[in-house]
């Protein structure tokens, strides 16, 4: 029998038992629908995170630390500050800047401040960022006013823009503490802090920060590097400063480095490490995140696959039933010249057809589910200030893969029934009842 004949025959067989064929196919539709929407969700998550990383240029940035530090070791409590730590000072920053492919390197200065303006005050943190960062997210998207174009703060005029703010930072006031001690011979009840006030002008106000990339620049007040470096403050502002406070070192807690491209990360990191500094790059974390996504995808895929396995059992059940019903017919086909190969193919093609049609409709179902889920999810997320986002992603490989998988699983399910049909003994099958 020619392949089209075999194909036609299996379609006729499916058509003859319409209800059963439709129900069996429905099983596959649901299985593939579940698989596709699950995997689509996993892929969508990954896609959103990766593009977030990319948009925030996290693939091209790294953090340089005074010494090679193993974060895991610190977490485990086994960290001992090295005896000789190379200072991450201005000359070190210069040296890093001189590495080819380094686009930008600046010390990370961040400390808590109080902002006073128009009779109100708020506690926040101050962060020093060079004017050159104005080209990159999140500073390239300042909704009100503008980012400072140079290290010299320009003044523009608007209701808020151009106003003066008082930035209040604290320093240790050892003199007054000592004086107080001399007077009463008691230790002060609170830290002897002194307020230092600096007046600056607002040039721009940035919008709400969201996403992974923004965390690095979450400071409430952003000032140029020179301004930030010159502001009086406590000698430490974060953990790195404390770790770094061993004798003989003086310098910054960390230095932010941007490379020209993603591929430059590795050579730049090697050069920096050669200089004796430690490097933390987000790209390392990305590998971990990818690992996590792989596990999540596998779990989501497993749920979908279970649905598909149930569908495959449905196919086996339907086909075994139909073979039992059609034993005589198989005998007749053999008596008029059908070979075992012919019979096997007829049943195989029935399974393949169920798999293909089920896969196609399953894809449609999966797509519909993801669209609806997306609308619903965004509807609930919007009031919470989450920007509109497509939670699902359906790449071509997922579409093609789902179809191939569906047909493959169906063929696998059809394998046993088909060979059972091929082995039907025509003498038994044709024996009169």
């Amino acid at each position, binding site marked *: 029998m020619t392949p089209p004949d075999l194909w036609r025959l299996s379609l006729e067989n499916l058509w003859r038992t319409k209800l059963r064929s439709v129900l069996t196919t429905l099983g596959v539709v649901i299985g593939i629908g579940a698989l596709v929407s699950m995997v689509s969700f996993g892929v969508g998550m990954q896609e959103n995170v990766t593009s977030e990383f990319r948009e925030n240029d996290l693939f091209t940035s790294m953090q340089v630390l005074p010494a090679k530090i193993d974060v895991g070791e610190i977490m485990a409590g086994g960290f001992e500050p090295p005896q000789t730590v190379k200072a991450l000072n201005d000359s070190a920053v210069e040296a890093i800047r001189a590495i080819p492919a380094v686009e930008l390197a600046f010390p990370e200065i961040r400390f808590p401040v109080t902002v006073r303006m128009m009779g109100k005050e708020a506690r926040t943190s101050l962060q020093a960022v060079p004017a050159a960062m104005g080209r990159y997210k999140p500073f390239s998207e300042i909704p009100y006013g503008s980012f400072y174009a140079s290290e010299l703060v320009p003044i523009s005029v608007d209701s808020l823009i151009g106003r003066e703010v008082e930035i209040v930072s604290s320093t240790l006031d050892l003199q007054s503490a000592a004086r107080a001690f001399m007077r009463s011979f008691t230790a002060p009840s609170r830290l002897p802090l002194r307020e230092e006030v600096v007046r600056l002008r607002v040039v721009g106000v940035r919008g709400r920060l969201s996403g992974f990339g923004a965390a690095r620049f979450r400071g409430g007040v952003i000032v140029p590097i020179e301004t930030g470096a010159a502001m009086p403050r406590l000698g430490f502002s974060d953990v790195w400063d404390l770790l770094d406070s061993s004798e003989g070192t003086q310098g910054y807690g960390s230095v932010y480095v941007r490379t020209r491209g993603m591929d430059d990360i590795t050579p730049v990191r090697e050069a920096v490490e050669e200089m004796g500094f430690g490097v933390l790059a987000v790209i390392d974390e990305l590998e971990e995140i990818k690992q996590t996504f792989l596990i999540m995808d596998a779990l989501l895929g497993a749920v979908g696959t279970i649905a598909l396995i149930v569908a495959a059992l449905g196919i086996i059940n339907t086909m075994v039933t139909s073979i039992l019903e059609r034993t005589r*017919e198989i005998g*007749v086909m053999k008596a008029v*010249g059908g070979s*075992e190969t012919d019979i096997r193919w007829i049943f195989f093609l029935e399974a393949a057809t169920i798999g293909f049609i089920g896969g196609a409709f399953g894809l449609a179902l999966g797509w519909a589910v993801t669209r609806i889920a997306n609308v619903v999810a965004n509807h609930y997320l919007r009031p919470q200030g989450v920007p509109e986002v497509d939670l699902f992603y359906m790449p071509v490989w997922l579409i093609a893969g789902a179809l191939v998988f569906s047909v493959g699983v169906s063929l696998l399910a059809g394998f046993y029934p088909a060979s059972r049909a091929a082995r039907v003994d025509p*003498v038994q099958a044709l024996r009169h009842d």
Partner: protein
Amino acid sequence: MTPFVLTRDLCKTYQKGTVPIPVLQGVSLEVAKGEYVSVVGRSGSGKSTLLNLLGGLDTATSGRIVVGDSDVTSMSRQDLAVHRRSTVGMIFQSFNLIPSRTALENITLALAFGGYPRSDRRRRASELLSSVGLEHRLSHTPGELSGGEAQRVAIARALANAPDVLLADEPTGNLDSKTAEEIVGLLVALNSERGLTVVMVSHDEATAREVSHRVFRLLDGRVIDELSGRADG
């Protein structure tokens, strides 16, 4: 006489668990081309088994079967399928038509297995049905046909791929005597007009002797008697 169908010491033993059940115990017979022979014998004597072996539906335990110039006993399962579709045509007591298909479709299915081009099948199938007198029953399903009509469809199907030998296993067993006569008449006509070799199993020895050239009597898996039939053999 040069035999067209030949069996030599043909044995078939079924295995019921560990118990061997010998059904054919050395059947040797020869049938010439264009001959009409019948096989008679008591129920259980092995008539159907012999016919199924000739038709390539079953395989012998030992001995030889030759049809035309091919050794059926040495055929692979694929070759047996080719043998069934092109050398022999089989009809059965219970017709064995596919109930969901019309008379015409039952025949086009056989033509499809025989490798007939699709465009030709319907035309040839209706010609075959006309030749057995059923031109007015093309689109009837087996359930809508009388027993005689169903057996005619089965005969037309057996002839679909132009076989050399027609194997008929009690073709009139389910029919009343008048219809049975018509069916046997059709087989005789096919034999005499087209020179088709016919091997028919029957339990009616008188009719068998009347219509066949020769009659073999089977008992317990052996040919115990060869009777002469109608004169022109």
